[in-house]
C-alpha cells in the first residue's frame, strides 16, 4: 500500500464527508482506516454507513468533502486515479448483486480488471476464478456453470465475495455481509472475512449490524449516529464506553432503555 500524499499513510481516509438526499445523511464524517487493518462501522439503520462505504469508490458522490484511497483522491484525482482506486478495491454488496444473466464463472471473471484480463490466458483466467471460489469455500466444479437463480442465499454471498477478491484487491469493503443469513451461515461468512483478510493481507472496512461479530473480528470499530461519528476506537473501549447510544448497541437492556430516552429511529 502506498503512503498517502498527506503523509498519513492511511489506506482509506474520509475527510469531512457531507451527503444529503432528501434529508442530510452524512454531516461531516472524518475517519481513517490504516493499511492491513480490519475496521468495523456500526450504527443504527439509515444513518449513512452504506452511503459512506459507497463514497469510497464514487458509487455515491458526496456533496462536500473528499475521500482518499492509498493517498489518491477519489473526487479530485481525475478519471485515471478513480480507475486505479477501483482496481485496488473490492466491494462486497449487501445482497451480493450478482448479474442475473451471467453464470457464476462469468460473475467472478468480471471482477478481474480488464487490463489484467488482457494479459491473462484463458487457462489463467479459469484458474483465477476457481481459486477465488475455493477461497470462499465453494466447489468450482459444482457452481461454475450455474446461474445466480440456482444458488442459495449463502452461496450467492460467497460468489459475491469471490467476485470482489478475484481482482486481488488491496482493500475490501463489506456492506452488511451477513444480513439476511441464518446464524450458521452468518458465522461462516464472518470466519471467511477473517480468513480472507489474513490470507490476502487486505485492509477491510466492514459495515455491519452484527456487533458481536464485528467486535470479535476487527482491530478498531467506529459508530455512526445521526450522520456523525459517535465513537471511534478499540473494541474493548467500545464495550467499556459510557455513551448511552453506544451502550444501546452492546446491551439489549440498554437498547430498550434508550428507546425511551434517545431519538433512535
Amino acid at each position, binding site marked *: 500500500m502506498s503512503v498517502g500524499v498527506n503523509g498519513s499513510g492511511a489506506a482509506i481516509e474520509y475527510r469531512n464527508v457531507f451527503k444529503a438526499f432528501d434529508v442530510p445523511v452524512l454531516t461531516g464524517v472524518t475517519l481513517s482506516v490504516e493499511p492491513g487493518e480490519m475496521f468495523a462501522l456500526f450504527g443504527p439503520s439509515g444513518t449513512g454507513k452504506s452511503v459512506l462505504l459507497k463514497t469510497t469508490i464514487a*458509487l455515491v458522490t458526496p456533496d462536500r468533502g473528499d475521500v482518499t484511497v492509498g493517498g489518491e483522491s477519489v473526487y479530485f484525482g481525475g478519471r485515471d486515479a478513480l480507475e486505479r482506486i*477501483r482496481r485496488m478495491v*473490492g*466491494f462486497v454488496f449487501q445482497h451480493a448483486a450478482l*448479474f*442475473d444473466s451471467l453464470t457464476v464463472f462469468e460473475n467472478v471473471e468480471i471482477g478481474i480488471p480488464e487490463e489484467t484480463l488482457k494479459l491473462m490466458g484463458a487457462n489463467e483466467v479459469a484458474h483465477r476464478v476457481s481459486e477465488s471460489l475455493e477461497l470462499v469455500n465453494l466447489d468450482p466444479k459444482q457452481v461454475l456453470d450455474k446461474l445466480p437463480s440456482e444458488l442459495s442465499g449463502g452461496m450467492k454471498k460467497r460468489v459475491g465475495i469471490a467476485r470482489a477478491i478475484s*481482482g486481488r484487491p488491496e482493500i475490501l469493503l463489506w456492506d452488511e455481509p451477513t444480513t439476511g443469513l441464518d446464524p450458521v451461515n452468518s458465522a461462516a461468512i464472518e470466519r471467511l472475512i477473517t480468513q480472507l483478510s489474513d490470507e490476502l493481507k487486505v485492509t477491510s472496512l466492514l459495515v455491519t449490524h452484527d456487533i458481536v461479530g464485528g467486535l470479535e473480528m476487527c482491530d478498531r470499530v467506529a459508530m455512526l449516529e445521526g450522520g456523525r461519528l459517535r465513537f471511534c476506537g478499540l473494541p474493548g473501549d467500545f464495550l467499556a464506553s459510557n455513551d448511552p447510544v453506544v451502550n444501546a448497541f452492546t446491551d439489549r437492556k440498554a437498547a430498550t432503555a434508550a428507546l425511551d430516552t434517545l431519538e433512535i429511529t
Partner: protein
Amino acid sequence: MSRQSSSVLSPYGFLGRSFIAFERVANSVAGHAGQIGLLAWHIGVACVRLRVSRRDIVRQLNIIGIQSIMIVLIAAALIGIVTSQQGGYQMQSQIPLYVMGSVVVESVILEMGPVLTAIVMVGRVGARITAELGTMKVSEQVDALISVGRDPIEVLAAPRVLAMIISMPLLVAMANLTGITTGMLSARVTLGLGQETFFYGAQLFWHNYDLLYSLMKALVFGVAIPLIAVHMGLRTGGGAEGVGRSTTHSVVFMTLTILVIDALFPPLFLN
C-alpha cells in the same frame, strides 16, 4: 363563497396553475432530453473507442432483432390486410380498383410499416430494456459493475442501442414486404384484384425515395427507442415499485416520441 374556493374557480388561478404545470412538464422534458443527449454522446464515444463488446452486441441482436421477427411479421401481415380491406371499402364503385395497389404500398411503406413496427418494439424491447436495467439498478448490479471498473454505458447501454439501430431498418424492411404481400393477397381474395393490376396501381404513384424515407424513419425510431429505454432504466430508484413506474413512464415517452417524430417526418422529408 370562501376566498379559497373563489381562487380555485377563478380563470386567472386556473391559467396560473396551467402555466406552472406546463413549465414543470417543459422542464422535465428538457431535463430528460439533455440527459438522453449526453447518453447518446457517451455511447458514441464508447463506439469510437471500440469499447463495446462484439459478443454483447450479437447477444442483443438475437434478443432485440431475431426474437422480434415473428411478432413484427404478424403485426405487419395484419396491417396489410386491414389497409387493403378498408381501402377497398372506401373505393367501392368510386375509384378504379387498381389504385388499391398504390394505397396499400404507400400506406405500408410510408406510415404503417415503420410506425407500427416501432410501437411493437416499444412494447417488446423498450419496456424490456427499461425493466431489465431498472431491476439491475435497484438491486445494485449497476453499482457492482462500476465497482469492478466497468462502465455501464459501455457494457449495458451501447450494445442494446447498437443492436436496435441495426435491427430496426431490417425489421421495417421485412414488415413492409409482409404488409404489401398480405395486402395484395387480401385484395385478390376479397376484391378480386389480380396481382398484375395491383402492381400496376402501385407503380403509378411509386417513388424510389419512399423506400429511403421508410428506412430513415426506421433508423430514427431505432435510435430513439433504446436511448429512452436505457435512460429511464438507469435512472430507476425505489425498489420494485420504482421499476414499474420507470417502465410505465418509459413506454409512454417512447410512444409519444415515435408519434412526434412521425409527425415531423413529412414536413421535413416529403416536401
